[in-house]
């Protein structure tokens, strides 16, 4: 009798269908998360084959590719000018956006009173981060290239990219500053530090890993941006820029130009260019991850 009751104890509870739903749901969300991974893998595979074909069938030498500038003649064409232009763009963008971005973040987090004006500024910054990049290119074209009359120079591209990443840097720096606990600030004030000493002495050092991570990720986004550079006229240039006020074509615009050529040789040059650009991206993302990981135990 007792065994029978035990056996039937849960007999009236039928969970088969519920468990099946659980499993089904698990599969659906797993498939959804795998979709992105699969697409990325396909993309990499496609680029990988083109890269391989370029190196073998079209006999593109990687050393030549990295040490020659662009050229109208496909067999002489290389990527050096574009790489150098992109690196210069990154440095100028970082300089332009970092100080303004971190400065605004410090103002908004540490100084600004909590009122309507501040909230309006913050809401606008969040919106700014979603503005299509081509708009920043348009702005730089109107204000710098034509307005100041610099022509399609590297500095104009850097300004467009700087505006693009500035809102991202501000928002991520604000998050990093907010993560510093108030008790640490109070400890500093109680020791007789002024506001600026507190920010300089304890808040910024504690927030800087987060700020650096955000900045690098923002720059990683900027390095692949094509539209703003096209807007300021960074195309049809093959040589290395001699300085910020020289004409230029960065990695993405060079790839874009090659990809638009009818000859398959140029297409494969573009594929190799993409591999180089992706390498830059991975290195920058890796650096950001390293910094985050290295300092995450602090505080």
């Amino acid at each position, binding site marked *: 009798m007792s065994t029978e009751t035990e056996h039937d104890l849960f007999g009236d509870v039928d969970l088969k269908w519920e468990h099946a739903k659980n499993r089904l749901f698990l599969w659906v969300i797993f498939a959804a998360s795998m979709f992105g991974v699969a697409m990325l893998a396909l993309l990499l595979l496609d680029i990988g084959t083109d890269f391989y074909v370029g190196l073998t069938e079209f006999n593109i030498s990687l050393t030549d590719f990295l040490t020659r500038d662009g050229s109208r003649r496909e067999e002489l064409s290389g990527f050096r000018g574009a790489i150098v232009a992109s690196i210069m763009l990154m440095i100028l963008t970082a300089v332009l956006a970092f100080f303004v971005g971190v400065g605004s973040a410090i103002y908004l987090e540490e100084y600004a009173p909590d009122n309507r004006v501040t909230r309006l500024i913050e809401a606008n910054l969040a919106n700014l981060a979603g503005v299509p990049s081509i708009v920043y290119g348009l702005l730089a074209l109107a204000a710098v290239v034509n307005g100041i009359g610099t022509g399609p120079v590297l500095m104009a591209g850097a300004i467009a990219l700087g505006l693009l990443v500035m809102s991202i840097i501000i928002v991520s720096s604000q998050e990093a500053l907010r993560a510093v606990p108030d*008790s640490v600030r*109070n*400890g*500093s004030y*109680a020791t*007789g530090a002024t506001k600026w000493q507190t920010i300089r*002495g304890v808040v910024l*050092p504690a927030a800087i890993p987060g700020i650096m991570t955000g900045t690098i990720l923002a720059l990683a986004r900027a390095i692949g941006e094509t539209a703003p550079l096209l807007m300021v006229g960074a195309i049809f240039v093959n040589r290395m820029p001699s300085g910020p006020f020289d004409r230029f074509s960065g990695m993405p615009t060079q790839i874009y130009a090659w990809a638009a050529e009818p000859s398959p040789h140029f297409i494969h040059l573009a594929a190799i260019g993409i591999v180089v650009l992706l390498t830059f991206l991975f290195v920058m993302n890796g650096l950001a991850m390293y910094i985050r990981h290295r300092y995450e135990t602090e505080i």
Partner: protein
Amino acid sequence: MMARDPDDRNPASKPRETEETDTTMATAQLEDELITTEVETGSTERAGRPDETVVATTGLTVHYGDDQALWDVDIEIPVHKVTAIIGPSGCGKSTFLRSINRMNDQIDGCRIGGELHFHGKNVYDEDVDPVALRRKIGMVFQKPNPFPKSIYDNVAYGLRVQGKDDEVDLDAAVEDALRGAALWDEVKDKLDESGLELSGGQQQRLCIARTIATDPEVLLMDEPTSALDPVAASKIEDLIDELVEEYTVVIVTHNMQQAARISDKTAVFLNGGELVEFDRTATIFENPADDRVEDYITGKFG
């Protein structure tokens, strides 16, 4: 110096006759006796010295938004003495301490009324710079809050921001402060490790070292021994005993024995922010004027 018999601070080492009477009576008596004994050790020649006020409040009130946390506090804190603040949790002890060095200024929605005089000057006057005030009135917080910096930089921080780092030998000052806070032996070989990697009790002593490094005139301590083992706690008590020769100490504590042991005067806060009684520690513990204070001290309350 207050050379006291070290055994005196340890109630356990005192021989005490345990009478087999009514148990509740015995406990009450025990507690009474224990505190009385301690008060006698506490009332040394320092307590007998005449009081000279360094911090005085008149009608001090503190509001957090619409909630009033302190009601018309009038108190005169004597210089070169230890003043203990006791009272149940949430009665406004930390709030009172923070209003002395104007740390309440940092809290949004906190409003202060009345006056708080430091050497006769109302610190809430327009022309008082809270930064200057805090260089004279140091504070150890209830929750340890070391900076995310090395142990050395934590202690040197105050001297650096106050621009005293080239007047003094920084290494020596750091060592002195760490010794004072009974932390030196534990950290002397790892001064460049992060202060956050210390244990909670070590962090608390690091914060004490950080505060005494700059030699403030008045030292506000919010439960400085709450996270410490008895040995470290008694070292901090020794330190307070030593410091008070030159400084003024205001200490918040939940430990009645500690208050009785180390303080000259005791303030009892009750009832959501009211200063109920303020008197010589011996009087508070032996013969309080207010029944509620007696109830609180003997454990019948709060």
